[in-house]
């Protein structure tokens, strides 16, 4: 494809004498180079469209993960959802098309990985828990080189990432997008049939919440259902020990005094609202979309480096992993509810 950054991919040209898209007006007319190029393009588009249709059937569920602004933990959440779904025995793919900072590979121990293309097909890398990964980072010269993509090239790459990847059969495909209302979600929504919906990630701060309201509007304009809102970095839990049933006091983030009573074993814990908690839920209620749950502030959520490890892998029974599992349950329930309401109510076909 012209203008494509994935140069290894050469679409097969239609054989000479094959059905000529220009209607076979003159038998002996040799197509000009330009016509030839157009034919090749149409042919590869057709092929891609067919595989995309096929992909619609082979991948049972497709979930888009978005946020109104960067740095709220969208990629951390997308990766966590993929791992959590995989922990339940699902076959999961993770497509990272956040060109502003494709950091999913590093969260799954795949830093430094490059695109694997064989016979014109792209093969995903396999990360922890067998999660299959395709990332814009695989196209970079080095993980630290920022890329400036021109619009058409970027969208072409995304379409290739959708149509030319050998995902195989998947139960879930999770897609991590750039923050805000960029072109990418539109391209994906137009190219991929039957998207289950969008998960919007926010933090409890007012600015992030405002942006997540915009994301809900954005989802509506794309005609993609909103699965719900996840509130990330929502409160930090500290633990300690004291004497059995002893009451101790802790100073909170805004200097308020919090009194806690230890249990029979002398253990106590308290969740501090680093940012004001509950904003995600209020926003969800306001916008009339589901609230999927909170993820705690967890400074070690990703153990860094190219061989990064997500908390879900490092501590499958830990607080973060449990929070992710409950959000996954909420997502599954919401997807099912959306399907039910679509098939019963809504459009009447006679």
């Amino acid at each position, binding site marked *: 494809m012209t203008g494509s950054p994935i140069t290894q991919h050469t679409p097969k040209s239609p054989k000479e004498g094959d059905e000529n898209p220009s209607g076979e007006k003159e038998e002996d007319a040799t197509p000009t180079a330009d016509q030839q190029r157009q034919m090749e393009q149409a042919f590869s588009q057709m092929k891609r469209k067919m595989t995309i249709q096929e992909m619609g059937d082979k991948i049972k569920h497709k979930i888009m993960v978005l946020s109104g602004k960067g740095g709220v933990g969208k990629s951390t959440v997308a990766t966590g959802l993929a791992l959590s779904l995989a922990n339940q025995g699902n076959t999961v793919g993770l497509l990272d098309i956040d060109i502003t900072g494709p950091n999913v590979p590093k969260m799954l121990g795949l830093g430094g990985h490059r695109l694997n293309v064989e016979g014109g097909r792209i093969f995903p890398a396999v990360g922890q828990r067998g999660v299959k990964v395709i990332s814009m980072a695989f196209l970079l010269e080095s993980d630290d080189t920022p890329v400036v993509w021109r619009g058409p090239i970027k969208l072409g790459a995304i379409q290739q990432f959708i149509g030319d990847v050998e995902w195989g059969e998947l139960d879930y495909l999770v897609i991590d997008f750039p923050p805000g209302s960029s072109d990418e979600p539109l391209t994906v929504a137009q190219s991929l049939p039957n998207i289950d919906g969008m998960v919007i990630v926010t933090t409890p701060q007012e600015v992030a919440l405002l942006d997540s309201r915009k994301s809900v509007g954005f989802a509506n304009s794309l005609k993609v259902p909103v699965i719900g809102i996840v509130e990330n970095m929502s409160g930090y839990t500290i633990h300690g020990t004291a004497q059995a049933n002893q009451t101790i006091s802790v100073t909170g983030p805004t200097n308020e005094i919090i009194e806690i009573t230890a249990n029979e074993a002398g253990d106590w814990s308290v969740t501090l609202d680093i940012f004001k908690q509950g904003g995600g839920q209020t926003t969800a209620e306001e916008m009339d979309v589901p609230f999927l749950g909170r993820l705690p502030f967890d400074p070690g959520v990703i153990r860094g480096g190219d061989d990064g490890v997500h908390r879900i892998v490092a501590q499958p029974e830990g607080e973060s992993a449990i929070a992710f599992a409950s959000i996954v349950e909420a997502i599954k329930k919401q997807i099912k509810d959306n399907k039910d309401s679509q*098939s019963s109510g809504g459009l009447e076909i006679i």
Partner: protein
Amino acid sequence: MSENLNLVKLERMNSEMELTWSDGSINTIAYPTLRFWCPCAKCGPRRDEEELSNQFQVEVDSLPTEKPIVNPVGGYALHFEWSDGCSSGIFRFERLHDIALGENPDGGKPYTHGAW
């Protein structure tokens, strides 16, 4: 088409279908017209040039008259199945609305992949 306009009812008649929209408006699309505007990658390029396009129109006009099977896609589009001709296209509601109003749903632009 306004963002919130939704298709609420589709009734298949013998040679056309009647669409009822959430704003209460009702309009019809004849089956050959629907088939001419198939957004799939095979049919799209066939509308790009006038001569090709005329030939394509003749082709869809000569297809047998039948009621299609209608499959909803998500909450935003419909897929039509025919016993003959092309059944690949996924029609977004906006597209159906444009077609029903006699507008060019491709906006006069040549076919580009993904533009439903």
